[in-house]
């Protein structure tokens, strides 16, 4: 009986664990090994360079540094604006409003478009002569602001970010809505009797009860921000002057364009490492508290 109880969890875990090991763990370890080599992927001469690739990226590769900075900007933007908006939409649409199913669908649907499509749609919105945004800005008398947003290294990343918010806000919204739906009514009724203000009920009832949802939303948003790729690549191609390169696109360049598999793998592992130090402590903290 004891033995059975010990083996049972492993049996339930087995299918997931087996697939996970084969598809993710083994290939990742392979790339970790490669990150210590100078190799073009096919040639027989494969030179061990230790941490050389990692050091090269940090000290000599300017584009890597830009990419890292861009990812961090994207991360901060996603954690504040994207999640904030997602939560706000969810809170509004969780109320008894007429047509809330319609509004939910409207805010969610851009999320079903693939990044490549969103990139085309929004490049056209921003188009300096034929785009709607330019037209609109000129119409309301702000000609000065009708600049080619995507072509200015100072604004390009933020212009793409706006498109990404448009596309991505549906995900946190749906997750928060699901979380909000699972909160029982009783605490709110008690709060009303106690005369609590709306903000207080939000702060002391809603937020704590959304804890598990927050784990999911934070984790997916952070990972999404670190791995962002296709929408930026589609809208700016990493330009102008490489000012919108991100880690994923730079890894792609190094691996598949320049044939520096080692350097590409090292970028991957920087990415994994950054995610680790941001997300794991948070998840451990939360999951310790959430055990019943």
């Amino acid at each position, binding site marked *: 009986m004891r033995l059975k109880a010990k083996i049972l969890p492993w049996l339930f875990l087995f299918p997931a664990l087996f697939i996970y090991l084969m598809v993710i763990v083994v290939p990742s370890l392979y790339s970790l090994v490669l990150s210590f080599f100078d190799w073009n992927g096919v040639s027989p001469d494969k030179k061990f360079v230790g941490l050389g690739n990692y050091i090269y990226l940090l000290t000599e590769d300017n584009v890597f540094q830009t990419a890292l900075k861009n990812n961090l900007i994207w991360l901060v933007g996603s954690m504040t604006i994207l999640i904030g908006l997602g939560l706000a939409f969810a809170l509004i649409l969780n109320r008894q409003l007429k047509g809330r199913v319609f509004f939910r669908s409207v805010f969610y649907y851009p999320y079903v478009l693939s990044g490549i499509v969103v990139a085309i749609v929004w490049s056209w919105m921003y188009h300096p002569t034929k785009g709607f945004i330019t037209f609109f800005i000129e119409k309301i008398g702000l000609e000065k602001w009708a600049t080619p947003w995507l072509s200015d290294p100072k604004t390009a990343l933020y212009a793409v970010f706006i498109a990404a918010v448009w596309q991505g806000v549906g995900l946190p919204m749906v997750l928060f809505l699901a979380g909000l739906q699972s909160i029982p009514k009783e605490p709110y009724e008690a709060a009303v009797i106690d005369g609590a203000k709306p903000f207080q009920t939000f702060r002391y009832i809603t937020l704590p009860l959304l804890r598990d949802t927050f784990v999911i939303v934070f984790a997916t948003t952070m990972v999404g921000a670190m791995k962002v790729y296709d929408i930026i690549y589609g809208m700016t191609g990493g330009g102008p002057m490489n000012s919108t390169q991100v880690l994923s696109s730079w890894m792609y360049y190094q691996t598949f364009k320049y044939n520096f598999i080692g350097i590409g793998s090292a970028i991957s592992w920087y990415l994994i490492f950054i995610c680790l130090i941001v997300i794991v402590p948070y998840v451990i903290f939360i*999951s310790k508290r959430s055990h019943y």
Partner: protein
Amino acid sequence: MSASLKRKLSNVLVYLVLFLLSVIFIMPVIFVVFTALKSNADLSANTFYSFPKELVWSNFAEAWNRIKHYMGNSLLISIVKVPLGILVNALAAFALTRLNFKWATGMFIFILIGMMVPMQATLVPLNMMLNAVNLNNTFPGIIFVYLGFGIPFGILVLRGFMLAIPRDLDEAAVIDGCNELDKFFRIIVPIAMPAIATLFILDFLATWNEFLLAQIFITKESMQPITAGLLSFQGQHSTNYTLLNAGVLISILPVMVVYVFFQKYLISGMVGAVKG
């Protein structure tokens, strides 16, 4: 000012904000519809937000003809992958939340780390592995890979929801004489349905829109998914934007259907789950 007037005013304000936001959210896709209905001459001569000079409905027929077999492939892959993935993940999440598993937190973190692995980094070793077992260019092969990349997120979602299911229910089940597998299928899965619905929507979408892995592991044209089909409108030297836009509109229909169907289920099922 009376309380009811105040509430009415705030309702009006909320509707105003929602309406404005809706306009912003819908507009870009209106332009996609416009483009899908334009001729190439119209598109190149006029702005991207202008109404088509002449409605070219045949764009849709032509796009449909070119992408229908890709749609079929994607549908097949998604319909097998998504439920199978949910089953695999739910079993694992059950083990992590319900079976007094000693390594539960550690195992969860271990699996969560997988979410951070960039797909590009795994392409070469995965390709080698699939080749070695002759699963390259087969649906089981790509489904296996998709299952793998879906595991961290799936377990993250299902574990969160399963943790929130009260333990009293398990004890009731034990009294009823259920074994663990019964408990899983008869108690936990029905209660976790809202989470499963959420996951179904998101996973179906992720599978439907996946491109990077598909282009490496499914190279045979007859088996390629819809993402490859849409890209085929982009030639080496030119892109057929009107057909591409028509194709995009057609290609999102299945995902929209899945969303509409499951989102109802999501909301109604949720309330029951908590009361359950």
